[in-house]
């Protein structure tokens, strides 16, 4: 359920990626996300992957409609990015990450 990508016990960026099964788009999104995080947020993030096919009830809590959806739960406020995260700049803007 949760694929932890390292990080401290309380990472600065707490990210959840909602997917529905292993679709090419989900895989693509995860690859894109990891790449961006490693590039800009190395060591400061945690990614959880939530497969809604296995845990459909979790979709309600974070108001998930679109797949894939990336939810930034930390830092506040919560942000959502939907899509396969192929546009790096928009992901960075969406995550409110400034280039280091």
């Amino acid at each position, binding site marked *: 359920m949760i694929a932890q990508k390292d990080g401290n016990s309380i990472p600065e960026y707490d990210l959840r990626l*909602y997917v*529905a099964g292993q679709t090419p*788009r989900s895989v693509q*999104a995860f690859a*894109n996300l990891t790449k961006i995080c490693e590039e800009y947020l190395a060591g400061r993030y945690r990614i959880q992957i939530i497969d*809604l*096919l296995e845990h*459909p*009830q979790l*979709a*309600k809590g974070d*108001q*998930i*409609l*679109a*797949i*894939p*959806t990336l939810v930034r739960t930390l830092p506040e*406020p*919560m*942000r*959502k*990015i*939907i*899509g*396969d*995260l*192929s*546009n790096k700049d*928009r*992901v960075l*803007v*969406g995550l409110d990450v400034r280039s280091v």
Partner: protein
Amino acid sequence: MNVDFTSKLHPERSLLKCPTGIAGFDEITLGGLPQGRPSLICGGPGCGKTLFGIEFLARGATEFGEPGVCISFEETAEDLAQNAISLGFDLKQLEEAKLLVVDYVHIDKSEIAETGEYDLEGLFIRVGSAIDSVGAKRVVLDTPEALFGGLNDTGVLRSELRRLFRWLKEKGVTAIITGERGEGTLTRHGIEEYVSDCVVLLDHRLQNGIVTRRLRVLKYRGSMHGTNEYPFLIGEKGISVLPVTSLGLRHKISDERISTGVPGLDEMLEGQGFYRGSSILMTGTAGTGKTSLAAHVVDAACARGEACLYFSFEESPDQLCRNMRSIGLDIARWVDQGLLTIHATRPSSLGLEMHLVEMHGLLEKHKPQVVVIDPLSSLLTGAENENDVTNMLLRVIDRLKQLGITGFFTALTGGGGVLEGTELNVSSLVDTWLLLRNLESDGERNRVLYVLKSRGMAHSNQLREFLMTKKGVELRDAYLGPAGVLTGSARLAQEAREREEDTRQKREAEDRRLAMNRKLCAAEAQILTLEAEKEAAERELNAAAIESEERQNAVIAQRAEMAHSRKVNLKPKGSQPKASEAGV
């Protein structure tokens, strides 16, 4: 309502329907929404789309044992529950009973960034899990078009919504999708293209400051349906689509006759009065006694122990009771006994539909056998056009007929207007039409009544004078004179003249009789005298005969004596002349 819900010919082939439980809607659609298919309910803001959906779910859960799911894109579950409570549905309780799931789908553009491709599988999963959690048979998507406000990629949204509807169909749930009406299209984003089995349009319009809600089934694939605009109402018990106009004329009829309460009028209607369950229209100009006659009908019905409902649009109940007392009708006692309910409202207080709904409600509540609407024509004042009123009345009459209630309506006709027509064009709808009019003659106005038509009976063709006395309404024969119908004092004069003539003739006859009697007596006396004379004459005759015989005998005796004295042998007569010859 006696509407066939399924086709009798091919029940197995006809479209299965899912009853909504919404009053009236199932009649219009002959059974409800298409089962296992999505239907679109669209309309402007505040038209009642959401409520329609909620009621569909709530009634499904409570009345038809079908659990439901509500995916709300606009209101939170709490808001929905609160709104529904005011209409008599406890959503929280249904949720606890595992009969309902409400999922609020919220999407806020400010929190969402889009990058790259996506689909709405998340929504599918949510709907799917909600359906599975209660085994839902009914799903309401309350304005999924709200998604267009939250997501930029309309192309994806469209294809995903289309996929969602198809998916719902595959799941076999009966779904309602609500949509806000757009400019020139049924929904803002044209999703009606994807939901094409059944489209229902809700609407509310402001007319003369009164809001009227209307519902129309725009499309219903594979099924017959009522195509009119039906007024509907959101009341304490949810939506009522009203009035229910049956699609056919199939109401049961009665052969029973009921008295009108006025013996003279009964007489005009074959001596028996109206048919039970028929509709009676009574038209007349102002002050012709329409209300008084209506009160008689009510009085007679209550005296039979029947419940009556009196809709008064002009007089308050107290005023009505007082006025009727003046003609000797105590209808207040029926009110006290609970047989009569007088419902007085100003026609302008409510829209036509509200009146109608109120009527339906009261009919339901009081279950009357006789209903009076006095007067129909005042409903016109609140209405934009007459067609609406006619339509409404048609529905009222229809409803009453369905329920077998005798309806008595009064209508005011304008002084200068055509008497044998109503402004409301309801005359062809009613079974019996009584006409009251004023006749002006000899400086007075008098009321006359006649039966213009009465279906199914040989009614009188006579004009009758209509009198209001201390003992109620009376119908009198009207006199036909050379100058027309005689009423009022002219009739009284005529009656006096006839009475006079009558006595005169009687007196003359008596005189003649006496004269004849006298003559007869005289004749008899004469007969007696003559008989006495005859007797006397006979006696005399007899006496004369006896006398003459005696005289004869005496002569013979004398002669014999003489002969003896002369010592002459009496010879036979033949020899006597010889003897006399010899003697000569």
